[in-house]
């Protein structure tokens, strides 16, 4: 089993921390922000995390969920290390929160920056972002198996996989796929953002990508890209048609396609080290309210996010 996501995320303490926070939120709120809240994005503008943070900001402002304004600040330096160090340094400052992506785990490993996710106070998980194996719709490969077989028989490094950044989630998945095509490898080409990657695939400068749904959905709907398989244990629950004849739920899982690779990305929120339970409770409640809005549900569907983790029991079973 290639369960990279699980092993890197598999930390009961995170899960329990978040779970504890979720259950606590029922208690009366004793704390509220007294000045604008900085929502730090450890990535550049326009990416998945940035979009989500700005979306949350929009929902909070539109529905008046917080008396103080929420301000989104991008700190993309050093693969997000800049943002994480900022919040790590903001000890006991309740007016700073950070949205996380896989770089919460991969950045300290890849760059050696003195930072560990355990330094932060977990607030909650917003959703799990999916990954899908995409090829150009004019490519001959109709299934994930066919594509990987082609990699296996082709010349070493002939096939190019595009992805966001280096030593981050996209490359981790690529390495996982390469275990199945051994000894042949793919050439991993890192780009700046997920949107760029999707367009490079449309322009046939690369052979495949593992874009998040939201990064590639527009090109899929326009008929330029073809999804091969979803890196999740179960198919997506969104059954509404996205293209003329396909819904997210029509994309087979990679396991169904004979490729035993799963990967999902935590889209979570963390607070500064040492903030109080009341302060955590405020944010937990805030994000609950955000998640209850129609806007949020729409947004989740557009990006085919996996929302099942929002409820307690399944959440624990996934992590433990």
């Amino acid at each position, binding site marked *: 089993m290639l369960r990279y996501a699980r092993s890197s995320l598999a930390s009961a303490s995170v899960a329990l921390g978040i779970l504890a926070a979720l259950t606590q939120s029922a208690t009366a709120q004793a704390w509220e922000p007294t000045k604008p809240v900085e929502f730090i994005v450890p990535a*550049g*503008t*326009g990416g998945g995390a*940035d*979009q989500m943070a*700005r*979306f949350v*900001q*929009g929902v909070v*402002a*539109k529905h008046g969920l917080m008396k103080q*304004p929420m*301000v*989104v*600040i991008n*700190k*993309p*330096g*050093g*693969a997000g*290390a*800049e943002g994480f*160090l900022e919040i790590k340094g903001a000890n006991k400052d309740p007016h700073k929160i950070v949205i996380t992506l896989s770089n919460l785990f991969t950045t300290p490993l*890849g*760059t*050696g*920056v003195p930072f560990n996710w355990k330094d932060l106070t977990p607030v909650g998980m917003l959703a799990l972002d999916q990954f899908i194996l995409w090829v150009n719709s004019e490519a001959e490969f109709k299934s994930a198996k066919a594509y990987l077989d082609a990699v296996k028989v082709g010349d070493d*490094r002939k096939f*190019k996989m595009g992805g966001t*950044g*280096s*030593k*981050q989630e996209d490359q981790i998945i690529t390495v996982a796929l390469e275990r199945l095509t051994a000894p042949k490898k793919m*050439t*991993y*080409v*890192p*780009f*700046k953002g997920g*949107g*760029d990657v*999707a*367009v*490079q695939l*449309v*322009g046939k*400068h*690369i052979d495949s990508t593992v874009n998040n749904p939201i990064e590639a*959905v*527009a*090109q899929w*709907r*326009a008929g*330029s890209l073809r999804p091969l398989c979803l890196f999740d244990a179960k198919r997506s629950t969104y059954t509404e048609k996205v293209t003329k004849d396909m819904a997210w739920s029509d994309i087979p899982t990679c396991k169904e396609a004979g490729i035993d690779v799963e990967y999902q990305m935590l889209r979570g929120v963390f607070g500064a080290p040492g903030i109080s339970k009341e302060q955590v409770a405020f944010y937990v409640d805030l994000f609950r309210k955000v998640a209850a809005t129609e806007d949020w549900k*729409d*947004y989740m569907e*557009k990006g085919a996010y996996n929302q099942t983790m929002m409820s307690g029991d399944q959440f624990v079973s996934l992590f433990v």
Partner: protein
Amino acid sequence: MDDIASLMGGFAVALSWYNVFLMMIGILLGVIIGVLPGLGGANGVAILLPLTFSMPPTSAIIMLSCIYWGALFGGAITSILFNIPGEPWSVATTFDGHPMAQKGRADEALTAAFTSSFVGALFAVIVITFLAPLVAKFALRFGPAEFFSVQFLTFASFIGMGRGSAPKTIASMCLGFALAAVGLDSVTGQLRMTFGFTDLLKGFGFLIAVIGLFGIGEMLNSMEEGLEFKGADGKLRLNAVLRTWAQLPRYWFTSLRSCLIGCWMGITPGGATPASFMSYGLAKRFSKQGDAFGKGTIEGVVAPETAAHAAGTSALLPMLTLGIPGSPTAAVLLGGLLIWGLQPGPLLFVEQKEFVWGLIASMYLGNIAGLIVVLTCVPLFAAILRVPFSIIAPAIMVICAVGAYTVNNAMFDVWVMVAFGIVGYTFNKLGYPLAPLVLALVLGDQAESSFRQAMLISQGSVTIFFSNALVASIMSLGLLMLFWPLLGSLLGTMRGAPRKVVGAKQ
């Protein structure tokens, strides 16, 4: 003709009182944002984005895009008056705009800048209106190798424009490359040259460097030269606009070339900053008065401003049709589209006709409104130079510091700005040109990653840069530009003519 009907429909949408009101607000806010260095268009739009969530999507995008147009206009103001580029794409405007202001011709420079901006934008909007689908397909042909060839062409067309000696130009450029390499290497994911300082993780921001090199450096120079603005004795001339307009038609060819460069760079998406540099470089190379460049010629203001605005405007096209932003501001607008429930991408033109054509119509109207607003303010802006230096200099220093801080919300950047200010002053004293350093700093990073991506794809073979007609022709053009001075003098010798320097390094 379908498009014309749709566009007229768009005008009907954009011309409602509410939308026109938002348009004016947007332009004014944009000009202010453009004037303040550091608080760039992207930041400004991001800060104001939440305000628009309760508006209908069309009104919201009209206001936000007008902020963007305003910022494009506003960036030129401080470049010309104080040699401080408010926006990265205004750097090239300082090369001739500021010398003009020093000669007391600030009003002419401002008028030329604003008018050229308008012409560039108008050209780009017309391209968007009629060629959108065609142009979007062209953008898809740009892979890493093509991007590198464009960046190479930018360097090549710019080389030799330094006023210093060739070795000094090269030294300055190399320093720029070295500074651009600091931070995370996007290809290997390794940190480079940070020496364990976490503040260096994000590398040296282009804007911070520019605020320091140009803004602070200029202040230090002015202080040394006697605590007053050169050009302060420039008379206030209310007919400056008309007089400048009378001169502009002479530069129609420069203008057209800059429009084309701008549109091309905006769409591919190379961005407004390289577009302005490339356009300036080419204008200097091919102008009859090439030697006057850098000393305050109108043509040197026209070229970069036209290209920057054309690029800035056409950068919205890939955002709308492909969902890839051609500029940082477009990236923030892209986030906005999602929040308003719109899906940018190839189907936007089909599914959201009213929105798209409303936006395109607002590009026409917003730019006209912007031109009127900024032109009426020309005498006012030019009058700022009459304020005594001792009063305005501290204010500029503060604005620079605030600007540098705003880029990343980091105090460290303010110190970096001061350090760059000293570098700028020293360079000036020693006769090293700043432009190559700035160019290398802004493009070095991108050029490096495009080159290495291309090398990964081709598995190390440089033939990829000549693998198809598109990339091969851009590369050849770049090589031709690079060796032009050499070829020129060679041809001259062969003909036995007296060695006339054709666009050679000064």
